[in-house]
């Protein structure tokens, strides 16, 4: 009997230990800020119902232990922890896209000579990457009629699509949109002419 009790005592203390480990496991929720593929480090604000924490420097980490507790004070994530925890996810990270910017003769759907040469580079990129999507977006600056600008931007984007189709790129890869003046390369107030914003952007993924 005494023996049995001591076994139970040992078992229950073992159980308590096990529960501690499980509870510790539950708390393993972390958010880490790291540099993006271009080396740029932004900012992230992590909030629970009890408070928030700002991540600002590369490697900044906060841990979350339930929505009723504030995020932990910021620590620095060890590279070994990052590699061990996120290795699988990082291994399948999509390669950064290749981005091409094409310029046109003023008011027309004719590519500048320099941009015409870029078509071959786009085709090479699509083939080399075995691309799964090619997005072509037409952009305008913030002058003139939105309606006419959008129409021209879309016609230019369609023109680039036609050139890629001529080179044997499969139509199902390609999507074409007009972003109008809503996604400028260089931000300007309305009514300011900016030739660098009148462009077509081809993004190859």
């Amino acid at each position, binding site marked *: 009997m005494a023996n049995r009790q001591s076994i139970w005592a040992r078992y229950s203390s073992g159980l308590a230990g096990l529960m501690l480990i499980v509870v510790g*496991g*539950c708390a*393993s*929720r*972390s*958010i*880490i*800020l*790291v*540099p*993006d*593929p271009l080396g*740029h*480090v*932004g*900012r*992230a*604000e*992590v*909030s*629970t119902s009890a408070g928030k924490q700002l*991540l600002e420097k590369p490697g900044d980490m906060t841990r*979350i232990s*339930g*929505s009723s507790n504030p*995020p932990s004070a910021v620590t620095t*994530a060890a590279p070994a922890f*990052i590699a061990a*925890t*996120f*290795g*699988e*996810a*990082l*291994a*399948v*990270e*999509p390669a*950064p*896209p290749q981005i091409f910017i094409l310029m046109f003769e003023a008011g027309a759907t004719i590519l500048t000579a320099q941009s015409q040469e870029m078509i071959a580079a786009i085709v090479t990129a699509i083939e080399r990457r075995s691309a*799964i*999507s090619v*997005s072509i977006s037409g952009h305008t600056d913030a002058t003139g009629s939105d309606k006419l600008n*959008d129409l021209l931007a879309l016609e230019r984007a369609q023109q680039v699509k036609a050139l890629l189709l001529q080179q044997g790129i499969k139509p199902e890869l390609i*999507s074409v*949109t*007009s*972003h*109008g003046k*809503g*996604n400028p390369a260089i931000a300007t107030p309305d009514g300011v002419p900016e030739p660098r914003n009148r462009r077509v952007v081809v*993004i190859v*993924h």
Partner: protein
Amino acid sequence: MKTSARAFLVATLVAAPAFAQQAAEVIGHIQNVQGVVSIQRGGTTLSGAAGAVLYRGDLVRTGTPGAAGIVLTDDTSISQGSGSELSLDDYAFEPKEGKFALVLRMIKGTFSYITGQIVKLAPESAHVHTPDATIAVRGTKLLIQIQE
């Protein structure tokens, strides 16, 4: 009765094309796959092969072992390791109309998240929800671990 039935029919006819158009909007692709990956769309579960298209509301699930790398049309990139679940709760990328939304729900697992053009153009419209926290991001890359 007859009137209400007709009203219903009209409502359905009006609503149906709008819904169909919305549902048909491709918001991204699965670019890389390791092991078992599935997409839950409404009541159906589809195999998540490389090149599979994604729609708003899709849930991407990885097995053990399993991993998936996703690209959305605004260049947002999300990759997830084994035993992970990601729900694409809301998405809109229409710069011409100034319409932006990106709501990602990371349910469990490990994630690498690189922000795209939505965060660049309208950071306030992008949110990541985890089971007990919300993350607002200003142009960057984040690693997120949600162990159950």
